[in-house]
């Protein structure tokens, strides 16, 4: 896999997850106690032997930069290749923001040209999965197709807004997995093959097509460029089915449900079948004091539990004080639930303190408390 490079397109703040992404990119969303979404894409690439990864950043890239550092946790702090952080920048031609994936690729065309891998794996940030790309690359080479797209038939809908639906892409396939047509943003899809925004193609071809597509006023690789060129029979496109656990994090509810999914043993085994790397924080192991109660929960290092925790995901350094109850909730790093407080169906962002009372949301509408808030 030395001949494959990766590019991750991190989406900007998203209106559908306003409370959670107001201060961070979707890729930087904290998930499952100690990870960020990008860890899954990065780890999949690294576990497949990819040694050159570019991360296209958006305007609010601070927390993502902080997380990735020099890339040493992913073994990407190497002399040759390694991790390349590609934030938007201003020049005579660039305006300082990216207007779609094609524009982002165009701005970083020099990086694409300079890389020396034959193939490029281009991916978005909404789909969470854990895979080894070796088989996909092998099939891609054998098939001789120009482009291979990863898809899943396991997409689960969790009340997505129309603006997000418009971003969904389904593939119409023949029985040999050749893509016959794209279904862009259907309200009710005709095909079950949900496209995971993972695109494999020759690097030189991508460089060539980006220029052409932009000249024709296109914005997005997956939704504009590939469908049009397929229609014009300029490209052959194939599908590759990913059979493992997949979750699209695209709304507050899907974020909540994704975390809750991990309380199931089988799903956890599936998503963590290959190691997932993340930034190390050197926290002390979690501590349960005498009288603490916990059940059906994921708890990260650095937590101190004195009260009760049920069906919840606790991130690093969370404190649940004596008499406090945390139920069906996602509690991010360094948050604190003080004596006697009860929370249920809530998402507490980083460093939230709940000092008194009850905070009860509904399973289908979890309450979100923003970063650094004290209630």
């Amino acid at each position: 896999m030395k001949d494959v490079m990766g590019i991750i397109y991190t989406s900007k703040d998203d209106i559908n997850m306003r409370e959670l992404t107001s201060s961070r990119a979707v890729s930087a969303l904290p998930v499952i106690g100690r990870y960020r979404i990008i860890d899954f894409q990065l780890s999949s690439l690294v576990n497949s032997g990819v040694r050159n990864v570019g991360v296209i950043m958006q305007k609010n890239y601070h927390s993502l930069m902080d997380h990735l550092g020099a890339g040493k946790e992913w073994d990407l702090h190497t002399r040759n290749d390694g991790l390349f952080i590609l934030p938007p920048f201003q020049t005579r031609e660039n305006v300082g923001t990216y207007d779609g994936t094609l524009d982002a690729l165009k701005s970083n065309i020099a990086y694409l040209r300079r890389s020396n891998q034959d193939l490029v794996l281009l991916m978005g940030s909404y789909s969470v999965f854990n895979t080894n790309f070796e088989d996909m690359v092998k099939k891609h080479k054998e098939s001789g197709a120009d482009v291979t797209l990863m898809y899943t038939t396991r997409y689960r809908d969790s009340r997505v807004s129309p603006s997000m639906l418009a971003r969904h892409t389904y593939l119409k396939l023949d029985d040999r997995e050749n893509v016959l047509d794209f279904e862009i943003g259907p309200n009710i899809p005709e095909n079950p093959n949900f496209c995971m925004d993972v695109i494999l193609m020759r690097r030189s071809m991508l460089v060539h097509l980006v220029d052409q597509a932009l000249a024709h006023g296109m914005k997005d690789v997956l939704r504009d460029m590939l469908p049009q060129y397929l229609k014009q029979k300029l490209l052959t496109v194939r599908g590759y089915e990913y059979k493992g656990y997949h979750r699209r994090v695209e709304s507050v509810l899907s974020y909540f449900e994704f975390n809750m999914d991990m309380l199931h043993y089988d799903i956890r085994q599936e998503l963590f079948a290959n190691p997932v790397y993340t930034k190390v924080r050197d926290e002390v192991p979690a501590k349960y004091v005498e009288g603490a109660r916990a059940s059906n929960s994921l708890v990260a290092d650095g937590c101190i539990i004195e009260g009760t925790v049920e069906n919840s995901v606790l991130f690093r350094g969370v404190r649940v004080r004596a008499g406090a109850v945390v139920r069906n909730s996602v509690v991010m790093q360094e948050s604190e639930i003080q004596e006697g407080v009860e929370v249920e169906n809530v998402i507490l962002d980083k460093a939230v303190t709940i000092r008194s009372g009850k905070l009860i949301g509904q399973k289908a509408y979890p309450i979100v408390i923003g970063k650094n808030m004290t209630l």
Partner: protein
Amino acid sequence: MLKKSCIAMLLAGGQGSRLGLLTKTLAKPAVPFGGKYRIIDFPLSNCSNSGIDVVGVLTQYQPLELNRYIGSGQPWDLDLTNGGVFVLPPYVKGKSGEWYRGTANAIYQNISFIEQYDPDYVLILSGDHIYKMDYNKMLQTHIDNKAAATIAVRLVPWEITHQFGIMATDKAGRITEFEEKPAKAKSNRASMGVYVFNWQVLKQYLMEDEADKKSSNDFGKNIIPKMIADKQKLMAYDFEDYWKDVGTIYSLWEANMDLLMDPPLFNLYDKRWRIYARNPIQPPHFIGSSAQVSACMVTEGCEVYGAVSHSVLFAGVKVEEGAVVVDSVVMPGSVIKKNAVVRRSIVGERAVVGENCDVGEGGQSEIALIASDTVLPAGFKVRPGAQVGPEDAVAKEASDK
């Protein structure tokens, strides 16, 4: 190479024979401690936090796991262009070449390593103790005292003085007498095995000691007493915080239990003095619906379905439904199967305690030890104070049939 004012030499070659089966296949400094650490994380983190950025680790006994663990030194920020951590096994020099014959000989054999950095001071450490210490403060005291050597000292209970180097000091803290592991101690001021030496002075003594064929080439037995006899200025440096020798099964168990007190006897939560460790790369731990956890430490990768109280679980430990773990230390990757009971025990790495096994007893009974990679067949009983290794378990099962 850039000159360094002070470098550290960490003696990690000892077998730790008092830890029995636990150190059969790994060096004592590599023994797991406190849920996610290994003993060597403490001196290495202390070095890193004290700003000492050249650390030579002298290895000899079963070094493979230790070498792998230290790696490039990245977890302790010791993967540096100018400095870092270096594993120093004995090596062949010209026609000679031999094992390290003692602590002083180990340093003697690495004089050329030390000289590369042209240090003014050398800090000698051991990989046997759990403590947090600012070596820089000790070094500063050493410099202020214009001493030839400074030894970190603490009071220990009288009944264990025979395990330590014991010293007498005058009012100013100058060491007047030093006895290594005395049968009858005159004081309970014990050496912590942390020394600062003026390098030029130490080098002189190391060479003289090497020339002395009768010497056992040991710091406590030879170098320190010789320096006192020569009226060199040796100072004691009092250290009163938590410090524990984890050289025996019981003390290792007890030090783990110290972490469970509320507030803990030994505080790992100080953000300005973090203890670093190599990360196991596992998801957060999971507590099942049927589980009970109380007064315990649990770390990443654990899956708990049974009842765990007053215990320390290391990375990736699995406690199945109906299993009971009390007053115990379960090291990385071990599995406690259904309905097994583990009390007052240390379970080594990657061990399996089979269904319905009964390990150890409650009360004040002796600590039972299941060695690493041991697979206990279902229903196996381990008495308090017993040590069971992989071969024992197999033999027992065969005889049962």
